């Protein structure tokens, strides 16, 4: 490991003011074991091409400026050891901006969409503040703990630009904004929790568009696990009665209905229950395909005909649901 390694780094190059299309350029250099990705970015600029552009500031993993992607992996350049990445990616490194379609110059992107989403969730404590308080507004340890680690976010955008749902649906708030929504909603000094839960429960915008890929948890350089906060927001919407009956909420709640009846999820029934009978027209074609292949049967999902397998000791599951469930739709 102590040996230097001669490598070629392939870097994304683009200048939105002068270039019609982006291109990649190779840079050869010897990498030593303690060098960070940021060191390599610096060396491209200092030893090869002074016009190579990227953001950098604190060099301590706290400003979030130097976030890029290496071989598709979101990294903070100032935290990531280059040799470890060379081992992981078989000695071939590709440096790219977090979002190629938002590239302005090389590694630098326009993060407007990130900040817009962030602003949408009112990312601050909303409270009537007494300008001349007699005492400090103290937080207990328990109140602080309820925020979990959501407060550690440095707004680097690593999770946001790793999220595939956001890539397809530009209206989705995405993991960073949802993490911020959670952080301020659980803050006991804040008065805007209900509004945030209303916003984050909207179909197409809020938590129900999360595809559950865990890319955000993997991408976060501060190890925050945004999808954990998204699950908490889901639960809070039910707990606080904000969740409205729609295809997504019925789908989540419908699992209890199925499990109570069979122990298993009833795959056909959950679709009927979530969509309602009128909504089933969308699934007729799929149902016919699945029936032809023997995946489902004509009786499936038809009320009063129960051809579902059942687990052994179903009574245990029914009892556990009765004594453990706290939420309702």
């Amino acid at each position, binding site marked *: 490991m102590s040996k230097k390694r001669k490598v070629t780094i392939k870097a994304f190059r683009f200048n939105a003011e002068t270039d019609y299309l982006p291109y990649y350029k190779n840079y050869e250099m010897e990498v030593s074991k303690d060098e960070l990705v940021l060191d390599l970015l610096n060396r491209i600029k200092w030893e090869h091409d002074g016009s190579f552009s990227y953001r950098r500031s604190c060099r301590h993993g706290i400003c979030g400026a130097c976030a890029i992607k290496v071989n598709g992996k979101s990294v903070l350049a100032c935290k990531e050891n280059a040799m470890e990445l060379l081992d992981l990616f*078989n000695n071939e490194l590709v440096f790219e901006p977090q979002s190629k379609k938002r590239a302005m110059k090389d590694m630098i992107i326009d993060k407007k969409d990130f900040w817009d989403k962030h602003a949408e969730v009112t990312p601050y404590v909303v409270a009537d503040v007494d300008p001349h308080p007699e005492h400090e507004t103290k937080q207990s340890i328990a109140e602080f703990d309820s925020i979990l680690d959501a407060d550690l976010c440095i707004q680097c955008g690593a999770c946001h630009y790793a999220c595939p*749902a956001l890539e397809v649906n530009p209206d989705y708030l995405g993991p960073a904004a949802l993490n911020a929504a959670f952080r301020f909603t659980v803050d006991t000094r804040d008065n805007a929790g209900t509004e945030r839960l209303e916003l984050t429960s909207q179909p*197409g915008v809020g938590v129900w568009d999360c595809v559950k890929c865990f890319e955000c948890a993997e991408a976060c350089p501060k190890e925050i696990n945004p999808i954990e906060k998204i699950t908490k927001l889901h639960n809070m919407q039910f707990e606080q009665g904000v969740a409205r009956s729609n295809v997504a909420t019925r789908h*989540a709640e419908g699992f209890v209905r199925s499990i109570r009846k069979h*122990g*298993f999820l009833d795959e056909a029934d959950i679709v009927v229950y979530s969509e309602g009978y009128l909504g089933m027209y969308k699934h007729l074609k799929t149902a016919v395909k699945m029936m*032809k292949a023997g995946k489902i049967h004509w009786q499936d999902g038809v009320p009063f005909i129960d051809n579902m397998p059942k687990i052994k000791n179903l009574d*245990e599951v029914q*009892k556990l649901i009765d004594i453990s469930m706290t*939420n309702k739709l």
Partner: protein
Amino acid sequence: MSKLKYALFTGCTAKQSTPELLSSTLAVAEKLGIEITILEEASCCGASHLQDFDEFLAHVLNARNICYAEKLGLTMITICNTCQLNSAMTKHALDSDPKLKARVNEKLAEVGLEYKGTSEIKHFLYTLIDEYGLDKIKDKVTVPLSHLNIAPFYGCHNIRPSELHHGSNNGENPYNPTSLDSLIDALEGHPVDYDHKNKCCGFHVELQANHTSEVLAGNALLDAIDNNADMMVTPCPLCHLKMDTYQDDVAKVMGRDVELPVLHMPQMVALALGCTEKEIGLNFHVQKAAHIIPA
């Protein structure tokens, strides 16, 4: 080596819309001399949706499932990435939070059970590779897959979050996973290298965000097709349902033809080990796949 014994958590899908997953899993286990006890008491893992509704209830039900593997003194194996994730998340939460474990056990005591944390939870893919061994599988191949370019599709919930899985997936790196590739190699197939092998299939938002779901599946299917794949293989039946059942819908959204047979991981192994067509169960696929079996 003494005989490998596991408690199998089938999950719901293998008992309903993908019966071929269960039959091929059992056939592979028999060929390899692995002893399987099906956990007939196990309920649904919640599939991450019950977790959205009531996280605590999901922990209680998953802990109950694990109790039955503990009673047998066996590792619980899964054949679905999402079952793996949700069971492992409960195990991790309970093993690292004594207060939560006590709260869950208080409920389980009502039905005479106690979660102890003594059983490991591992996906069948990784038991085959880490515990049975690729060399030994290679020795048993009777139908080499050398005529096939096979695109491995890993599925999110076996590889992310890596911190949770690293104890059970041999440190698979989610940005450059290799297990399925090496399994394909051992069966003498040709692994297809493509960018979307470790990406999301879109299954979980099929109902409420249909367009997102079709695009994510389409990105992966087309990437595999453009890299000359003859078929795709996945260890997750939910990925399978998305990728196999919806190819014509995906084609409409992507504006291109999409036709690619998708196999469950155990089906691919069963094929190479010479299991019967009935055990492999390609007839249960929507996208027909019979032509991948050599004449």
